[in-house]
């Protein structure tokens, strides 16, 4: 039977404290306990990237991290990125390029794309493809996603 752990963290700019089972992973905690259902679960073993969230500035797979490990962390989910405006440019570019279909991969894809852009990534299609290879998309052909990320980088330069 699982033991419980007390955690305190910041999620999307709000303080959260909770008592969580030690086996609970971060994405389940965000989805089920905090009702932040924008983060998705595609594989639960770190492959698909649908659960990607931002933890202390890094993009992290929410299914590979325990909620208990997020004690004192500062976490931003797709909902937070929308609220604080950080994903505005990507949202516009993804919309214009139709870089999503079902949208299930999209929250993780945006978090990874943001990591690439904020890390100084250039509009090099191969580099972008490499960077987002940890995010599976089963609907688009990826091309529109690459286009959208390029657009954001190029617009920021001009």
């Amino acid at each position: 039977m699982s033991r419980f752990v007390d955690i305190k963290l910041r999620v999307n700019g709000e303080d959260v404290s909770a008592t969580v089972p030690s086996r609970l992973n971060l994405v389940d905690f965000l989805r089920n306990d905090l009702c932040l259902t924008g983060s998705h679960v595609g594989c639960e073993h770190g492959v698909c990237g649908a659960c990607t969230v931002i933890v202390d500035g890094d993009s992290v797979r929410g299914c590979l991290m325990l909620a208990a490990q997020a004690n004192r962390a500062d976490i931003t989910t797709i909902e937070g990125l929308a609220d604080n405006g950080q994903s505005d440019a990507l949202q516009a570019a993804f919309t214009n390029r139709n870089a999503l279909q079902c949208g299930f991969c999209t929250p993780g894809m945006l978090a990874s794309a943001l990591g690439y852009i904020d890390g100084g990534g250039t509009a090099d299609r191969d580099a972008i493809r490499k960077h987002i290879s940890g995010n599976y998309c089963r609907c688009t052909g990826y091309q529109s996603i690459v286009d959208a990320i390029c657009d954001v980088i190029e617009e920021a330069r001009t």
Partner: protein
Amino acid sequence: MTGPAHIFDKPNRYIGKSSPRADAARLLQGRGKFVDDVTLPRMVHAAFLRSPFAHATITAIDTAEAKDAPGVIAIYTGHDLTDHVTPYVGVLTHLKGLRSAPQHPLAVDVARWQGEPVVMVIATSRALAEDACELVEVDYEELPAVVDTETALDADTPVIHPEFGNNLAWERDVVAGDIDAAFAASGVQVIDREFRFGRHTGVTLESRGTLCDFDPSENELTVYYSGQAPHMMQVIFATHLDLPEENVRVISNDVGGSFGIKIHTYGDEIATAAAAKLLKRPVKFIADRFESFVTDIHARDHVIKARIGVTNDGDIVGIDLDDLTGVGPFSMYPRTSAIECNQILNLTGAPYNLDNYRAKGRVVFQNKTLMCQYRGVGHPIAMAVADGLLDDAARAIGMDPVAVRHLNLMADDSYPRASATGMKLDDLSHQKALTKLTDIMDYKGLREKQTEDRKNGIYRGIGFVSMVEVTNPSPMFYGVGGASIASQDGATVRLDAGGALHVASSITEQGQGTNAILAQIAAGVFGVALNRVKVTTGDTKTTPYGGGTWASRGAGIGGEAMLQAAQALKDQVLAVAAVMLQTSADKLDIQDGAVTDPDGTLRLPLADLARTVYYRGNELPNDLNPELIATRHYRVTDFPFVFTNGAMAAHVEVDTATGFIKVLHFWAVEDCGRVINPLLVDEQIRGGVVQGIGGALYEECQYSEDGQMLNATMADYMVPMASEMPDITVAHIETPTKTSVLGAKGAGEAGTGGAPAAILNAVNDALSPLNASIWQMPMTPERVLNAIDAAK
């Protein structure tokens, strides 16, 4: 059929425009509503204990300890549900001779594939339900598993359903002309190949899941369903759970990919609904990835021996094929598991002038996951066989693959006509599509470069496919065979008091942009701005009755219904406006949200008209009965389905030392009739191509000899990743179908249907200097190396 042509080129002309989807923002902000995002009061969770064996007798189940585990509400075995769920059988009368055994949601006495649900545990959380599953003791006696399709019919192979006497589910023979005589004629070369297509599956990023809620006070079941055909599922739940159809409501909110995976009857979902009914509270089940791999339908799994005969000038004289496919232990309910084989028999060689054709298909039972209709259904195989043989023949007689296609493809002015197998064809453009393809790809330039590269030991190849795609199915697809699957769709358009439109349709959204194109059609045909149309889909309670979105039917059938409904409402509104403005309706139009003169001069804003009708009816003559809502339904009548065509090409490089294949570029020219939204169609085609490349190069459900799936994780089953995929150039020919005013045909499956053939041909073109060739998919590095070795 004719219609007001000006709907395609007037103000508010949205049909044909690349408008971004209005619902993208919701998904981009994390506000989607997928099944697992919905939480209901008193909701509990289901977890399943599944058979670890491919074939086993269940001798005992002990749930005593599990029942006492924390959080456990109830535990059900197969026998526990037999009084509550009637079994189902996946047969259709028009697939003559197809047989399958009754299926139960949980295995009863015998488990017939690894992953078949055996015991369902309901608990207050999924984690606790899984904990309790570990405490359930099931005793199995393992039975020999039928795994290999090629020995499934042998006399000494165990029979999965003893009552049938053997493992044959269905067979069919198609004969046209005299293939033996055609092949024996002088000057005819016959090429003979054996093709192997591995099993793969859809891997929707959102796994299957269901949330079922039962309200005993109304005897009503509400199912939150991640899928494509809400009305079909309504009938299935009602029939097998003994509920009146009208007491079952099926709601599809956001669906995280479906591709044909989520349109079937899955035991775990039916059992979840039964649990909700028995417990009188909401029960949720979300498949984890392992469960998805071993229970989501698989597809392909064909061994095809095929021959083509060509004259020395390159004329095809005929195709002869024998298809053997394994579909798991049952035919899937209700669409059956014989359709893919049937499509292969019907479609192979369909783009070409062909007088002689013979095809044999055999569908066999085996102890593996069930096989059924996944995106492209039969097309990737039919196209790879015909076009693979054609390119092989072209090489044998020293002819260019483009020239051999132009010689044999049906002429664009030869329609209406039939294919060799009797399929009715119209409005196709094979020749034009191929010409456009070779133009946009600079075929000549690529060939010159290829010759140069070969001198430097670089093995690049160019491969083509000319294809047809079955879209817009009529009742001849399922309904005729007794399935409760609608082939017509309905659309309702309502003018609200504020002058906006509220529209509803029975087709569904899985990300293709269904809601977006419905809004475009309604706005354009009726005459309001796009942002003044609200769309409802995916709810049996609030939308018209219809089939949903599958077999590339949404835009063509649901779109036409919307066009007709919008036109009908426009006529009704103009009749009211004519009275209010004391003129005749034919002197009025609706543009930009207002009743206008034909030249666009404003006469009456729609909001004023609607408010008068809704709030101040006293101002209207008593004999005027305004109807500001219209509903229309549409089905395809003159054809079993509407074919589309396309031409595609792949450019690949094969590393002959490692066997790795790099796809350098891909081109697709598609004729899906009238294009409603190029932005959406293009990405649909690209996504389809990428799934096709996945099937050609990477994706395979690997099984051990005793029927265990060996790679049932996302880390081991390879789906295409961004870095491996090429850029894909898409272009269109638009030959609208004459079966509707809208003229739209389907587009969603073209890429998946065509890409594998183009990739196969490109790889074999690359390997041709080594005299090597490969005829097995996926074309893994190991298989490529084996092919090269075999040629040495």
